[in-house]
């Protein structure tokens, strides 16, 4: 089990009702971690253009997670 900080942005922050939470999880990847969050927060949707970052580095959905990581879930971006 890893102790992780999970942060949610924009529509994800609104869907979960929080910007950040600490979790203890057996999820090995951001993909699995997101699925766990989506079970707790039914409004959370995994859009195709959603991205994930680990410790402020863009990562892939199958990157390995380590104890102490901060995982950032980004809904589809819309800058400009």
């Amino acid at each position, binding site marked *: 089990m890893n102790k992780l900080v999970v942060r949610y942005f*924009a529509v994800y922050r609104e869907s979960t009702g929080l910007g950040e939470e600490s979790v203890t999880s057996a999820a090995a990847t951001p993909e699995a971690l997101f699925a766990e969050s989506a079970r707790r927060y039914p409004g959370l949707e995994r*859009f*195709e253009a959603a991205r994930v*970052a680990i410790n402020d580095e863009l990562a892939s959905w199958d990157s390995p997670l380590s104890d102490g990581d901060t995982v950032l879930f980004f809904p*589809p971006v*819309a800058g*400009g």
Partner: protein
Amino acid sequence: MFEICTGSVDSTRLARELADPACGGYATFEGWVRNHHEGRSVSGLEYEVYEPLAVKEGETVLAEALERFDINRAACIHAQGALDIGELAVWVGVSAPHRDAAFDACRYIIDQIKIRLPIWKKEFYVEGDSGWVNCEVCASKV
């Protein structure tokens, strides 16, 4: 030279830094807050920015432009927070020896900024409701 600012963008200072005696062309792009989107009347916007990664990725985009095009300098500022109609949300400036590269690099930078940076736009409609805007590619679910 990538910056995030709060409220409407003021490009005066960064535009000055693009001046270069070796450059004969200076191209800019300004993104303004528009009063309509997909048939709805918009009264204002709010940008949410995850600044640490937005700045890092923004600098990467500018470095790519300097690598790919024959330009000398490039800069970009993106707003965060609340903006009114007509305010400046994003500014890109490029100086180059010749105009073609300046135009091309400017286009490259704004296109990449829109799809790569962790920035989200919430629109407020005249009817009083609001919604998060998604880029063209994000409608589908996994």
